[in-house]
């Protein structure tokens, strides 16, 4: 059985109020079905506004879809009993794109990471502190960072804190919503490396949402392509992405810059990407 199954999910935004009788909703997801196996990473590629983040929110249980089901280990996350939902919650974590807005500016790193621990684990003060220090060290920070506030960290460091918070409960699945997109190239590589290590160590699964083909290729096992709310392609192996003839995929592939400027003319680009 798959860890997570998304079944025919359809969702649209838009509201009806007293002054706005007409239904002017906009469809953002239509009839999406996919599944994530335990210990694997599904990369979801798509342009801005394709509905990637909405799908992430739906999977996280933040936004109830109008139709369809999200099954986590066989339980529907929106209709399951409360105690099952609480268990599911703890196994589903998230790292957002904007590391600054994902942490409360008035909390120290220690309190940020402590939040999920306080809610689920009943640890003593000393145990909790030890766990937090271990987590910080695991993501490449140290004990001196415990008492620092978010504005004292760089974007990359803060993203590490977000990752530490996400793995603190040893979840099964982490939704990475453009988690590396706002970082510089060096930090991107480092964070991707860290994520890959954590995946091995904890047996994590990832749902990796991105518009960056290279980072998706680096970390994913399977790949999906989302375009205007529709899942146009879903590959069991990420290499199929480079042989697909779907026009959306071809367009995406065409946007990859060659390593060497010599290959950056339009004509040689197609030839070059085929050879990757």
């Amino acid at each position, binding site marked *: 059985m798959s860890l997570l199954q998304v079944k025919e999910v359809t969702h649209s935004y838009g509201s009806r*109020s*007293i002054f706005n009788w007409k239904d002017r909703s906009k469809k953002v997801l239509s009839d999406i079905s996919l599944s994530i196996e335990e210990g694997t990473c599904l990369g979801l590629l798509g342009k801005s506004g394709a509905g990637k983040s909405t799908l992430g*929110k739906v999977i*996280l*249980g*933040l936004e109830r879809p109008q139709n369809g089901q999200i099954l986590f280990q066989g339980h529907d996350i929106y209709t399951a009993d409360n105690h099952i939902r*609480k268990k599911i*919650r*703890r196994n*589903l*974590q*998230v790292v*957002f794109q*904007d590391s*600054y*807005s*994902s*942490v*409360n*500016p*008035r*909390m120290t790193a220690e309190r940020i990471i402590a*939040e*999920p621990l306080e*809610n*689920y684990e009943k640890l003593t003060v000393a145990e909790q502190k030890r766990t937090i220090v271990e987590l910080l060290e695991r993501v490449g920070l140290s004990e001196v960072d415990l008492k620092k506030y*978010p*504005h004292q960290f760089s974007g990359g460091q803060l993203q590490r804190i*977000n990752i530490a*918070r996400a793995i603190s409960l040893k979840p099964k699945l982490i939704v990475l919503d453009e988690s590396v997109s706002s970082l510089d190239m060096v930090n991107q590589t480092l964070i991707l490396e860290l994520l890959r290590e954590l995946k091995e160590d904890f047996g994590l699964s990832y749902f990796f949402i991105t518009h960056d083909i290279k980072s998706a290729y680096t970390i994913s096992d399977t790949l999906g392509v989302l375009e205007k709310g529709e899942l146009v392609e879903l590959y069991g192996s990420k290499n199929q992405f480079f042989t697909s003839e779907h026009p959306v995929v071809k367009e995406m592939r065409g946007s990859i810059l060659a390593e060497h400027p010599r290959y950056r003319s339009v004509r040689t680009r197609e030839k070059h990407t085929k050879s990757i």
Partner: protein
Amino acid sequence: MMTRIRKIFRSQKVIPICSMVLGILIIIAIFAPWIAPNDPIAVNLVYKLQPPSWEFPLGTDHLGRCNLSRILYGTRISLGFAMLIFISSLSIGLIIGTFSGYRGGWIDHALMRFCDGILAFPNLILILGLVGIFGPGLKQVILAIMLVQWVYYARMFRGMVLSLKEHNFIAAAKISGSSQWKIIKNHIVPNVLPPLVVMGTLEMGWAIMDISAMSFLGLGVQPPTPEWGAMIHEGKSYIRTNPEIMLYPGLVIMLVIVTFNLLGEALSDRYSIKRRF
């Protein structure tokens, strides 16, 4: 000369100076019985409308009561009740505004339309109307001001909660398994309260004005209790012969309001811009 004064008002010194003035006023309010040279309500018609002397440093009013003592005692009522109004209306506004903004939906609509309704009336008229219903008296005035004032805070709190709700750390807290109550307590309130407390110092000036205005109209503090607005009210019959009876409390009201406004402005300059979002 003017530029030099302006410079002082714009500089970093505003906060310490204003805090000092406020501190002195609070000390006066607490220790009024020990500082005041005379009994503020003792009537002695023999000494009526006296000029300043050693016994009565600011002279006496039409009933022979010591002006200085009355002003000192008046600090208690004006400052104390302004503080009470400030804290209570801030709390009501915080609870309703945060609840309304966080929950959204029809509750939000209903509460905010109610607030709009209250905001549509001029402040003072509404307070006047409420006092008319409750009957004159200090308690009734305080209650009326409170009932009107919280609406402003509720609107502001709601707006800030709405913008805060969009931040990812609220979503992250939900995913971390925090309850609604915990999110409001740990994430929302600590982020909306400080800027509004700063704005609240500006409102303190209004509260003092409102109390004084009601007293001036004879609806608030009843004689012989000393209160600045009531003192102006009582002194107005003697404006031709003894204008100082009105002048002293008027100056003190001005001092307090200017202090609060400068402090509020300086504090909001210092604490609102540097925030990260």
